[in-house]
């Protein structure tokens, strides 16, 4: 490994930038593949670059080989990704269940709510709380492609500013609590705020997989299941 590659790799990790270190096991040459750039010792053809970025997105390190040729191509892709994060807007009852479930699933959780009586340590023991206004909090937390955002307040004053930031961010998942009726009204408001149809279509609402969830904990399970499905299977979920 060249010192230059190692330094750039460590710098990307320090800045929470996703990067894949690709090693040609036959030649020892290495290349860093970013989401939007490539740096290093050898070039990759477009189809291989796509496969590398797919692995980076899925956080799946491993070998890319030529199935037709045992002695041929052997690339090792080492995905280096910043930690997964879940930003929950609304320190509400469902959030109290969602925070620990998300933490178990491997997410660093932040609960955002400017209403002091909601976002308290006693309601959210051990959870990172942020009492800024949701749009300010989300901007400050720098949403990346390893971040999921869920709004749970039902209150347009809190949810809408959060969605305006989240839907223009690289977040891999944006979900918003509310019935179909609530969501239809929300879409109208956000459209007036200037969001395009493609941006609005990113919202998962009503939030969560349809498992007939009733209680706050069940809804939290359905939300976490949906986030997992989107992360592992792509936007199909």
């Amino acid at each position, binding site marked *: 490994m*060249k*010192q230059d590659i190692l*330094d750039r790799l460590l710098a990307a990790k320090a800045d929470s930038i996703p990067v894949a270190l690709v090693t040609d096991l036959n030649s020892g040459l290495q290349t860093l593949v970013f989401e939007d750039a490539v740096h290093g010792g050898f070039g990759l053809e477009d189809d291989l670059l796509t496969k590398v970025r797919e692995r980076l997105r899925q956080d799946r390190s491993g*070998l890319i080989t030529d199935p037709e040729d045992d002695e041929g191509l052997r690339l090792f892709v080492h995905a280096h990704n910043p930690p997964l994060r879940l930003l929950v807007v609304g320190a509400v009852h469902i959030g109290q269940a969602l925070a620990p479930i998300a933490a178990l699933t491997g997410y660093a959780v932040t609960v955002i709510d400017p209403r002091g009586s909601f976002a308290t340590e006693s309601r959210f023991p051990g959870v990172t709380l942020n009492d800024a206004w949701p749009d300010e909090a989300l901007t400050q937390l720098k949403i990346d492609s390893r971040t999921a955002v869920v709004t749970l307040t039902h209150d347009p004053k809190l949810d809408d500013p959060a969605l305006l930031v989240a839907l223009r961010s690289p977040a891999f998942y944006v979900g918003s609590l509310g019935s179909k009726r609530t969501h239809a009204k929300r879409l109208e408001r956000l459209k007036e705020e200037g969001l395009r149809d493609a941006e609005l279509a990113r919202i998962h609402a009503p939030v969560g997989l349809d498992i007939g969830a009733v209680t706050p904990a069940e809804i939290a399970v359905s939300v976490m299941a949906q986030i997992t499905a989107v992360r592992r299977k792509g936007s199909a979920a």
Partner: protein
Amino acid sequence: MTDDILQQAAGWRAEGRKVAVATVVATWGSSPRPVGSQMAVDEAGAMVGSVSGGCIEGAVVHEARKTMEDGEPRLLSFGVSNEMAWEVGLACGGQVQVYVEAVE
């Protein structure tokens, strides 16, 4: 965890030591450490991280020193025997491939 290992490798290099990094690139069956697991070794044999539950680290350090000397990367294959697998707490054996490279 991986961060610490690569940072340690960079730190050792900055002190002028020879350093090699070993990475698990493939596993078959049950293997104690997943693909992407790493360890760094310096010329004196100091090491951080792991590529198995402890059963192949000695051999990897040996190969890492050769790589530090000649600069040639090495691709090592290990079959973890059932007996060894038992000792590292696995119910059945596995195979692991480890890539060793010098930082230069």
